[in-house]
């Protein structure tokens, strides 16, 4: 049993973090140049030949950096293609398509690939707009949609961990500086204890998300349950982390100019897309009880 990251993986995380901090809106072409697309696709199909666990690190960091492009959706589709291509991809789930306005192609649940086109909808998370596909003919692809769905939900869980981590860091930084009644507010336990809870929950969610990623990478028989578990817990953790962080920030955390509401909206987007936590837990409950 070894649950740790290799030196190469730690290096990848550092690189990803510093790049995304400087370029949160980096276009897909920049990420392609960095070798971030098709990381887990075998080399003979034009990919990086690494594992989904390596790719998982990028998803977590994309969440922490609140990356705004179609990186996640493209990355989870590429392994389903015969060959890694240069297009931006998205997927359609429950009739909704993330980043419909900026991608080239959309993979539908019936495994047809259709050119992106349709109506872009105003979405609460402005950095990840949803759209509805217009009717159009698609090209039928080989293989099942299920592995794509599992990669997508696992990637969302990982992104949620990154969101929770950032919300926690922002909260810790603020309460360590802000003074009221002549004291740093972080000394008050009513302020510090919710952040301690966020820390515990974020680490638990991180363990689940990487367990799920490992199951996906290994095609483990538990993958579907692990992914549902991770998506449920990580999404709720991210939402709660943002809510607590907004609360300990006081008034400033409620303003449009502060970045927190963007994380909060992303957390809620993640929870909703592909099914809220309660829907994921029903998958787990069926596995345990039926």
């Amino acid at each position, binding site marked *: *049993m*070894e*649950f*740790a*990251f*290799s030196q190469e*993986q730690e290096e990848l995380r550092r690189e990803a973090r510093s790049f995304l901090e400087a370029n949160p809106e980096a276009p897909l072409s920049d990420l392609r140049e960095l070798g971030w697309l098709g990381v887990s696709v075998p080399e003979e199909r034009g990919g990086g030949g690494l594992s989904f*666990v390596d790719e998982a690190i990028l998803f977590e960091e994309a969440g922490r950096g609140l990356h705004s492009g179609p990186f996640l959706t493209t990355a989870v589709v590429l392994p389903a293609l015969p060959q890694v291509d240069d297009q931006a991809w998205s997927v359609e789930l429950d009739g909704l398509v993330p980043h419909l306005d900026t991608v080239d192609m959309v993979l539908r649940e019936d495994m047809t690939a259709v050119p992106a086109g349709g109506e872009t909808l105003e979405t609460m998370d402005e950095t990840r707009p949803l759209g509805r596909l217009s009717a159009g003919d698609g090209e039928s692809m080989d293989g099942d949609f299920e592995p794509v769905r599992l990669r997508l939900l696992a990637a969302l869980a990982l992104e949620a961990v990154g969101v929770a981590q950032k919300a*926690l860091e922002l909260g*810790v930084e603020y*309460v*360590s500086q802000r003074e009221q009644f002549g004291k*740093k507010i*972080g*000394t*008050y*336990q009513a302020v*510090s*204890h919710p*952040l*301690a*809870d966020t*820390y*515990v929950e974020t*680490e*638990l*969610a*991180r*363990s*689940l998300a*990487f*367990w799920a990623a*490992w199951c996906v990478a290994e095609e483990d028989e538990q993958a579907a349950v*692990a992914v549902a*578990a991770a998506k*449920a*817990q990580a999404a709720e953790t991210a939402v709660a982390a943002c809510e607590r962080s907004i609360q300990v920030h006081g008034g400033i955390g409620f303003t449009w100019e502060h970045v927190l509401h963007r994380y909060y909206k992303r957390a809620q987007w993640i929870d909703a897309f592909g099914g809220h936590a*309660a829907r994921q*837990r*029903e998958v*787990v*409950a069926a596995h*345990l*009880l039926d």
Partner: protein
Amino acid sequence: MDLRDTPEEAAFRAELRAWVEANLTDEIRRGRFEEAGRDWSRKLHEAGYAGLTWPREYGGASAPYSHQAIFLEEMARAEAPPHLGVIGLGMAGPTIIAHGTDAQKQKHLEKILSTEEIWCQGFSEPGAGSDLSAVRTSARLSLEGDHFVVDGQKVWSSFAHIADWCILVTRSDPDSDRHAGLTYLLVDMHAPGVDVRPLRQITGEAEFNEIFFTDVQVPVENVVGEVGGGWQVAMTTLLHERGTLGFALTAGLESQIRKLIALAKEKGATPVQRDAIAREWIGLQAVRYTNYRSLTTLMKTGIPGPEGSGAKLWWSEANQRVTKLALELLGPEAQLLSSNGNRQPGYWQHQQLRSRGNTIEAGTSEILRNIIAERVLGLPRSR
């Protein structure tokens, strides 16, 4: 990253599982706490499973922490009784190894491993719970200078009613304040002036005790570390208490959740209860894999990863939710005592009441949140 047992770990697990199957008899499983416990503890020692992580030179197996983790998982899986020497093996022994004299090592370590000596812990006092530095039990050096005279009261001491020895934190300098002036002693529980009284808890049973010390003579050679340096020694003990504790707790929770699922299948569960059960199972996986992360860091660096600091906090609250959920599944008969022939409610009532102690013992949840806030997150100190 590989979340499977290594071939070597898998072999250890398989061997241990086969051994438990052959040795954990119904007599031991159903026997009285003390006799069955002694029997079981002796068997574990003979098979080499006591003191797995202790260095070989002190009679241990010098095994990696992963073996200790596997051991705890398998014991919980088999619902084996606790090792009677848990305080000796997990707290007193490692403290003596770290700070004790050669004579203390000679005298006690082998007997701790064999459970010939059962140990208890004398830390908490009526006026010193979360704040251990408020200890008032006094140790006065005799005029001859060859022994201390100990007076005071300790509380919440498991195993004290059957213990032979006690690790005791005392105040040796009456003019000292807080962390200074404390001395760590090894005290013979059979010495004159030691009085143990059971402490009845909300479950009705007496798992813990109060210990009263009246003019108890303790030879100076029983001081561990320096006179006045008891705080550092006590911290070593508590560090060991929290070392692989997470695995024992998680393994225990796993067996509770297994029973909860069986109960839900038998009684049927509403959609709300199904959601709650799934939530607890997910939490269990989360804390289990978090323990593995912390363990991997411990094996690589010698220090457990910080993420493990939340394990006890999470477990204690999860155990309270799980046991309440079981009572809810049982319906109104959950209130009936087992004297009515209802074994199930009796079990879950006991577990539910016992679980209220989980957020208090071995560091209250409030103290654990303070520790995470200050030492892990680096927030300004509240005290």
